């Protein structure tokens, strides 16, 4: 431990760590830090898993938009996989695999490039030709060029995954305070307001800001903006598709931070329901359903999976991804304020990358060597928009 932070007896008035936010990221941090025998308190303005985590699809997916993204997603996916046996049924963890669908020969080229990148990083994947794709996923429209299949990707139910992390951390001695909002930071302490309006100041060896889209309320310099997404869930149609189906064009859609985009992204849930995504737009914090964007998203999905059109919808909702200008999360020490660490800004990958984030924070707090190179996620790094990526990063992209 560094910076003079003191880590003493457990459950004291001055805990080793206070984590602000019990979304998937804060929850994973709480579990990792409790496993390090630290005295952890976690506060959430609402309840565990209530923020972006509540809205997410729960696709555990290796993405290769940049080398740093690839490193964090593949490391994290491995951590989820190792936890798989412990996860209770309510987390609905399944190793469904991802099938990246190529609409034409050009996209099939991109699939090949993607496969080479994955292979170089030890991520198993295989190219699938048109006939094989039709056999694997017969509900896809005919005439597709093929796909890249990534069998190790998974699916889970995010709110319960966050809740499980919190419950495990509590079993190891962590203290969780829900309906307790952090209102200000000052010199190694965080001021919190509990449900009845009672305020108190908790000083701690380390304060980890895992407040998702609300992180800038506590640390205004953080370049995090809410990026809205729509999701649709259907009634139960088990067997309509088997793997999570995503168009290769998804990367194009997920990339950059401006404009609206939709992409075909359908996930078969353990319940037999189908979760239909995805859309991206900057709309402030207006969570209303946007018919135009939703309509475009649904038409995109049914164009790939025609049988979807006939399925009954049970619910539609929106959520906000905590987005950063360069598409990478902010993980690590916040140098402007001693004793403060950031774990926020995970955009559309926070469910996947929560355990990796937690491992990086834990290693830093206990003074162990980081499991992967932390530099690209340094919250104080100079930000440039993802659209001016280096040529090397471009080569990394699938489209």
């Amino acid at each position, binding site marked *: 431990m560094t910076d003079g932070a003191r880590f003493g007896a457990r459950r004291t008035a001055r805990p080793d760590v206070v984590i602000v936010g019990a979304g998937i990221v804060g929850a994973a941090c709480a579990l990792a830090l409790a496993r390090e025998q630290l005295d952890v308190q976690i506060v959430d303005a609402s*309840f565990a*898993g*209530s923020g972006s985590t*509540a809205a997410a699809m729960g696709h555990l997916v290796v993405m290769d938009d940049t080398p740093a993204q690839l490193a964090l997603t593949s490391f994290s996916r491995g951590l989820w996989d190792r936890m798989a046996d412990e996860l209770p049924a*309510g987390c609905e963890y399944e190793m469904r695999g991802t099938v990246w669908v190529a609409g034409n020969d050009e996209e099939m080229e991109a699939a090949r490039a993607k496969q080479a990148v994955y292979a170089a990083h030890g991520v198993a994947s295989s190219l699938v030709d048109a006939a094989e794709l039709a056999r694997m996923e017969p509900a896809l429209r005919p005439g597709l060029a093929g796909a890249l299949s990534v069998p190790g990707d998974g699916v889970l139910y995010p*709110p*319960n995954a966050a*809740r499980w992390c919190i419950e495990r951390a509590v079993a190891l001695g962590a203290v969780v305070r829900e309906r307790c909002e952090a209102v200000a930071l000052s010199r190694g302490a965080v001021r919190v307001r509990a449900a009845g309006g009672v305020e108190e100041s908790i000083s701690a060896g380390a304060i980890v800001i895992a407040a998702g889209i609300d992180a800038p309320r506590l640390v205004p310099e953080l370049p995090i903006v809410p990026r809205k997404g729509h999701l*649709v869930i*259907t*009634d*139960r*149609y*088990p*067997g*309509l598709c088997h793997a999570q189906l995503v168009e290769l064009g998804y990367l194009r859609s997920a990339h950059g931070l401006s404009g609206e985009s939709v992409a075909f992204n359908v996930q078969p849930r353990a*319940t*037999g329901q189908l979760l*239909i995504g995805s859309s991206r737009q900057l709309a402030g914090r207006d969570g209303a*359903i946007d*018919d135009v964007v*939703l*309509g475009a998203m*649904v*038409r995109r*999905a*049914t164009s790939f999976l025609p*049988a*979807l*059109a*006939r*399925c*009954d*919808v*049970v*619910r*539609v*909702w929106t959520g906000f991804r905590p987005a950063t200008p360069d598409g990478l999360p902010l993980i690590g020490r916040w140098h402007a304020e001693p004793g403060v660490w950031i774990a926020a800004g995970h955009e559309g990958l926070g469910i996947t990358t929560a355990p990796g984030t937690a491992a990086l924070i834990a290693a830093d707090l206990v003074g162990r060597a980081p499991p992967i190179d932390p530099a690209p996620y340094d919250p104080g790094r100079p930000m440039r928009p993802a659209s001016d990526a280096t040529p090397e990063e471009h080569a990394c992209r699938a489209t």
Partner: protein
Amino acid sequence: MPRDVTVTVDGRRISAPEGSTLASAMLGAEVTHFRTSVTGAPRAPVCGMGVCFECRVTVDGRPHQRSCLIPCTDGMRVETSPNEIGAWAPPPDAVHESRSCDVAVVGGGPAGIAAAVAASAAGARVIVIDQGMRPGGQIWRHRDPAALPKAARNWLARLGEKGGGAPPEWLARSTVFDARVGEDIVLRLTGEGARGCGAVRARRVVLATGARELLLPFDGWTLPGVLALGGAQALLKGGMVVRGKRAVVAGSGPLLLPVAAALSRAGARVMFVAEQAPIAQAAAFAAGLWSHPAKLWQAAAYGASLRGATVRFGTWVRSAEGDQGRVARVRLTNGRRAWTVPCDLLCASYGFVPAVELARLMGCDVERGRVAVDALQRTTVPNVWCAGEPTGVAGEAAALVEGRIAGLDAAGDEARARSARLQRARDGWRRFGERLTDAFRPRDEVRRLASDSTVVCRCEDVRRESLDPSWSVRQAKLYTRITMGPCQGMVCGAACTSLFGWSPGTVRPPVGGTEVARLG
């Protein structure tokens, strides 16, 4: 006499009079297992009106269809284990057409019909949108028109008449799943009847969405053969056969006796009628009926047709048990002792819950579960009126008056809507509604019957033990999926309010669900 049609259920041919609902026809043919719950339990129809989603079957290859909303047609193919998608597909493009009118009325029960008739007589172009096959709502729809009370027959006849303008246009088997309030109001539709018309654009809207029954969970309430009171009535009207069956009728409110009488007329043996309200409370209510003599006559007539059945006040269902996947016995109690009554049918529900989802979606204020309206039935949202049960449960006469006022005012005839006669009648029925609600309010014991292992959410099989009363409804929903099933909490939401005091969650389109294609 209606001719018979033949339907194939899991390969077995059954026949039913034309016009029967599929659910009723299947029940009449002794089908007891309609769908399999998410944890593998058999389920069968409960509400008979499209709310509970327990009667879902696969119809001509299309899974998850509510058989209580579907008329039997010759050659229909039905499977009772809905899962994979068959050959069904919506006809292309139809869903994008829309129609315009001056006044759109949502709901074709007494309130909606009265509103439509009044508005069209005042010269407005009117469209009525209703989920059912025929006009009349839960109360009039299923009956043989000749058997309806005269007032109802008159209203239905007037629905087809030219008033000041064209007669109201009737859109059957259509459900509003989304509404956008702008300069015009756009109502987006789903359902079989909405094939030719995906939306209605209206200057003004009258919401007459009615109510649904309050179902409270007890051990065994998910067994096939356990129905809501109005559900039993609707299924009987739809052709359900109960001859020779032993029935117990329980719960609360003025539906108890008519349902018991209807079952008895249809040949069932009514073993027991249990009203949970204490006799003193119910008697005080009945004494207050002197101003509504017709109601007193009705009650006396029902009583007469029930000779032989035991009728008890202050008595309620504690639990039900089944044999071979259907109800076989019910445990009744009066709080001092409990006893068992054998039965093949148990009808139990506890009054009504106003259907306010659409009003909430449109932004109307809702107070104590009722849409807030002024003397002209105007809601807090301009150009939106509300009439009948959503503004407070008070029965068909209240609905007729309120519908009339709303229809007149929506068509621009404020003067007549304000007339002393209508306003007096409205106020009288509203007071009646308040007294009704008070007299039959479920007692605490009834509201908390669920044991740890009772399924509270029928759609997702969430048991009482997995719910923490200190949670908010949103927390419960995210952690357990309660209220996230196809009925969208229309059944378990009210149960949660009773059990835990949770307020209803947010309303989002598609209200009541729709097909994916209609979102595109």
